[in-house]
């Protein structure tokens, strides 16, 4: 549904997106995840045809957004960040205007506007001036607009940003319901958003791709830790644990005659074996093993890890 190849975009000297490639298949609900300033909005604006790319190409449903803009644009519904609307119009008037812009035939306009008002749960404010709406309602009017003419693809830029918890729950429920009918790409800088609504995630940082895959795959990128409390000398512990296979790094702290060790495993897959070997190595070195705790990385930790400063250097993680 979306094919992005080697996409780059600079604003003058600022490189907002750098050599970004990814795909979204039909029927998926994909989270486009990255910290503020990562280049999410820039990318989505290019997909929606609001901005032109500096280089690279983007296809929507097989149509190149630069070469066949009408074909591409008429296949997607786009909600820009903060959902800008005309405050002087009533909700129904606005959607009728949008329906006309999107070439909904005159005879079907009223029905189509009614359908989208219902779907986005904004029927109760249909006759209210947009300028008088709360942020949650305005966001949903933006979604109603994106739904007009039932495009196969929805692109939503931060649909829950700035909403209170109740409104967030409502918008999430709405998106969850839409996922059955539409392919959805939604951006967010909040991880739980992706866990709540999406089957897949594309993670970017500083304009570059750092990870893509299912939520579990991305969680799997995180490296679990084993925390040990050992009785013995710090040097002996360092030697024993450091030599054990499957360990990426070891941090040690000496307190009295105890050593607190935190070993980061190189690979989540072989986590259990690595833990066994670690304990065996400690026993062989005649260290008294007082306690062993394993700690799986949370998605938050993985995200923080992936999008940290050195993210650029780690682009090989991307698959």
């Amino acid at each position, binding site marked *: 549904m979306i094919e992005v190849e080697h996409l780059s975009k600079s604003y003058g000297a600022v490189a907002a997106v750098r050599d970004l490639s990814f795909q979204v298949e039909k029927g998926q609900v994909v989270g486009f995840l990255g910290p503020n300033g990562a280049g999410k909005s820039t990318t989505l604006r290019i997909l929606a045809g609001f901005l032109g790319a500096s280089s690279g190409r983007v296809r929507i449903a097989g149509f190149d957004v630069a070469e066949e803009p009408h074909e591409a644009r008429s296949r997607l519904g786009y909600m820009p960040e903060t959902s800008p609307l005309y405050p002087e*119009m009533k909700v129904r008037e606005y959607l009728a*205007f949008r329906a*006309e812009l999107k070439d909904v035939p005159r005879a079907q306009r009223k029905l189509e506007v009614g359908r989208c008002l219902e779907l986005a749960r904004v029927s109760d404010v249909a006759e209210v001036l947009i300028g008088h709406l709360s942020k949650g309602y305005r966001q949903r009017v933006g979604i109603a607009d994106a739904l007009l003419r039932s495009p196969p693809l929805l692109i939503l830029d931060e649909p829950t940003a700035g909403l209170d918890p109740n409104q967030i729950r409502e918008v999430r429920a709405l998106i969850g319901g839409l996922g059955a009918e539409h392919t959805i790409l939604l951006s967010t800088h909040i991880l739980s958003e992706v866990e709540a609504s999406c089957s897949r995630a594309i993670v970017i940082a500083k304009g570059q791709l750092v990870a893509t895959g299912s939520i579990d795959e991305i969680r799997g990128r995180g490296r679990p830790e084993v925390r040990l409390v050992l009785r013995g000398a710090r040097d002996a512990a360092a030697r024993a644990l450091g030599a054990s296979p499957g360990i990426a790094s070891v941090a040690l702290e000496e307190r009295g005659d105890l050593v607190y060790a935190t070993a980061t495993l190189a690979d989540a897959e072989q986590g259990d074996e690595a833990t066994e070997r670690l304990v065996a190595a400690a026993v062989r070195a005649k260290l008294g093993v007082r306690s062993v705790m394993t700690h799986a990385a949370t998605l938050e930790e993985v995200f923080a890890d992936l999008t940290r400063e050195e993210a650029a250097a780690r682009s090989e993680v991307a698959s």
Partner: protein
Amino acid sequence: MRGLVAIFKRELFSHFVTPLAWVAMTAFLLLQGLHFFLIVQHFAGQLDLSADAGPVQTFFGQTMMLYLPLLFVCPVLTMRLFAEERRSGTIEPLLTAPIDTAGVVLGKYLAVVVIYAAMWLPTALYMVLLGRYGEVDWHVVGSGYLAVLAIGAGYLSIGTMTSALARSQLAAALTSAMAIMGLFMVGVGEFIFPEGVGRDLAGHVSAWAHMNDFSRGIVDSRRLVFDATVIALPLFVTVRAVDAWRLE
């Protein structure tokens, strides 16, 4: 031209719910009413009117009162068109709809032209009044309104362009007012430059001479060609400017 009709209608609607549009219209009508009143007072004492200098001719062609309102009305009508959409961000959903840039620009432009024409409509009542109490040359009335429309359409086109180029409504209004003033000043050159190319050129550009001719029923097609240029060129620049935003 996809999007033209929808945008035209929305733009008309939104002008009529904006207080500023009503303020501008009221001020315009008050001024023109005063203008007409003064002219009628002036002619009231005269018994023998020559065909070339009646109240209708004076209204359209012989006073500054016609331009002064144009100088503020045209910038005020056009300043919102693009500057406000860019400020509020609504330009983004607009330009991501399956429309043509030319459709967006023309839809907005035609809406202000219609509003402008509607502003002049009540002044037609003056002509009807004059016709009831004396002779009115309807040919002159027709050419007078044609000139008012042609010149105004050019100024509105300039305003549409500055609204797309400027960062704010205020900057858009100021630059278009300056451009309109500049154009008018070049025309004044007709009375200043010595005989020659400069004077011919100034005479060609002069809105004053334009109105003067048309107010006497002289419809010079070269003037209309000039007006068409002042309409087309800024609109073309506007389409280019809007397309260029995508490449920023």
